[in-house]
């Protein structure tokens, strides 16, 4: 099937459009990488930063000497790992139980979960609860409130409903109970949906800063994104952080340090993203077909 001249022109223009769009999407990251590699004396005038202005790694040295960033990494790694594991396993277990029609109360439990999508207690009561539980300045304050999401539960439930009943019955004839069926039969079959939901939960924890705003009073309990927020919004905080040696402080300015901090803290997502992208897309589509 041949294409008319008009269609060919359209095709080329369309490709051109997407090339430009991709450049627009990539450019901020490019700008920040180049800015972070620049020599601090040469960034004062601003500019496009298509290439670094001068060259210096001092900003990165400053980032890795910064005690707050290192502790932010630690806090975020702990909350992300724990939150993702707890969230994924408990979500799967709950979703599996309510995927069984025979379970007494199954409808009631589903309704209870659904209702959390319709109504919420809001910010202040949630804050007061975490305070009353004595979780302020603990990792649990940043882990537990966000573990269970109604959306994730329903995505998993619809997946579990699609697993043929015969597989589970076969295992039961061999003497397995519901627990062993869940862990030995159902979970191994559910790797795609576990990966998808787990990734969404993980990104949520990695990008979270507001838990730190609400539930921490000490800087050493700040999540990475909270440390970053502080560095971005507070010019003097960018450079004069505990741990950064004087010789390095003289070689950087707040701009180069901000850029380097942003790059370092977004790097983990940028690195794993290409490999995991297809799982994310799958998740959106499973969710939209709903069960």
């Amino acid at each position, binding site marked *: 099937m041949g294409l008319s001249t008009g269609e060919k022109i359209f095709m080329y223009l369309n490709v051109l459009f997407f090339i430009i769009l991709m450049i627009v999407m990539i450019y901020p990251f490019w700008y920040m990488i180049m800015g972070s590699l620049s020599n601090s004396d040469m960034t004062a005038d601003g500019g496009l930063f298509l290439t670094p202005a001068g060259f210096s790694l001092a900003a990165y040295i400053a980032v890795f000497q910064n005690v707050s960033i290192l502790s932010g990494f630690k806090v975020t790694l702990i909350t992300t790992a724990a939150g993702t594991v707890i969230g994924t396993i408990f*979500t799967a277990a709950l979703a599996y139980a309510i995927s069984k029609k025979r379970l007494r109360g199954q409808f009631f439990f589903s309704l209870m979960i659904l209702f959390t999508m319709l109504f919420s207690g809001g910010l202040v009561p949630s804050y007061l609860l975490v305070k009353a539980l004595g979780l302020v300045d603990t990792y649990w304050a940043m882990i537990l409130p966000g573990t269970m999401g109604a959306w994730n539960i329903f995505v998993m439930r619809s997946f579990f409903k699609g697993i043929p009943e015969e597989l589970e019955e076969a295992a039961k004839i061999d003497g397995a109970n519901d627990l062993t069926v869940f862990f030995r039969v159902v979970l191994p079959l559910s790797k795609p949906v576990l990966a998808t939901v787990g990734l969404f939960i993980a990104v949520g924890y990695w*990008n979270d800063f507001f838990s730190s705003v609400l539930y921490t009073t000490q800087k050493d309990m700040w999540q990475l994104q909270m440390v970053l927020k502080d560095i971005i919004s507070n010019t003097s905080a960018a450079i004069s952080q505990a741990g950064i040696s004087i010789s390095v402080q003289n070689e950087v300015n707040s701009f180069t340090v901000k850029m380097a901090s942003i790059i370092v803290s977004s790097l983990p997502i940028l690195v794993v993203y290409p490999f995991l992208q297809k799982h994310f897309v799958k998740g959106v589509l499973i969710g939209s077909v709903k069960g």
Partner: protein
Amino acid sequence: MALSNDVIITAGKSDARIKGRFARDLIRDKFLYLLLLPGLLLIVVFRYIPMYGVIIAFQDFNIYKGILGSEWVGFAQFTRLFHSPDFYEILRNTVLISLYKLIASFSVPIILSLLLNELRQVMFKRFAQSIIYLPHFVSWVIFSGVIIAFLNPVDGMVNTVIKGSGGSAINFLGDVRYFRSVLVLSDIYKEVGWGTIIYLAAIAGVNADLYEAARMDGANKLRQMWHVTLPSIRPVILILIILSLANILEAGFQQIFLLYNALVYDVADIIDTYVYRVGIQDANYSYATAAGLFKSVVAMILILTVNKIVKKTGQEGLW
């Protein structure tokens, strides 16, 4: 007499039998309940207890006296809220900002997915998709850093360009005339790619014969999009618009929280940011909870209404 006794006896019997069956089912499914328990417990604690906590909106809550010891004031907090000029400002800002975002966030992804769908080179298409989905996963903290750096009036790139072409620097984030535009544009930039996923899936489901028939009739690409693709995905578009109307009170807390400042409160302060400042920072717990409760209740009514409307149009609703 004998008959009615009989009835009572059988009724009693079947009652016992039902109870017996109930207990037997509970025992049979004991492991399922075990699986259900931890997740349900987390939901009860972190979702349902705060729902109970909203009753402090009807109190003059004192954190030392607790919910049980605090004084009840009826609807006084709501009266105060509805009489405050702040309330109309934050309501207006919330609705306006999310309405602007809504218009942008359903129109631009549709156009973009139509264009993406026309890319013939599979590798190039995949690559383009990967790149434009990416900003969705970058946190608002990082994004706010990018925006602040780009729009900085002294040495930001945008203002360097403006000054270079003879203009004078604009403080985009501190000027009520520009702030909302910054919000809407940065939101599109971050979410437009991600927004195409559902449309692309819908477009992929369009019957290819329809395009062939349209081509036979001499329709060019633009006409095919207009007369074949768009009508075919209209149900999806409709549902997404209706559903986002239900979220009209969600104007994007994180984004605004990270970008706004006292200079632009007039146009940028939304219900959520107000609740945070008044409730958490100033510790006006009851008053802020009342404002939050107002939002939750309106949001719930909106979702229930919207779901009904969606079902009336013959589509599957949210539940």
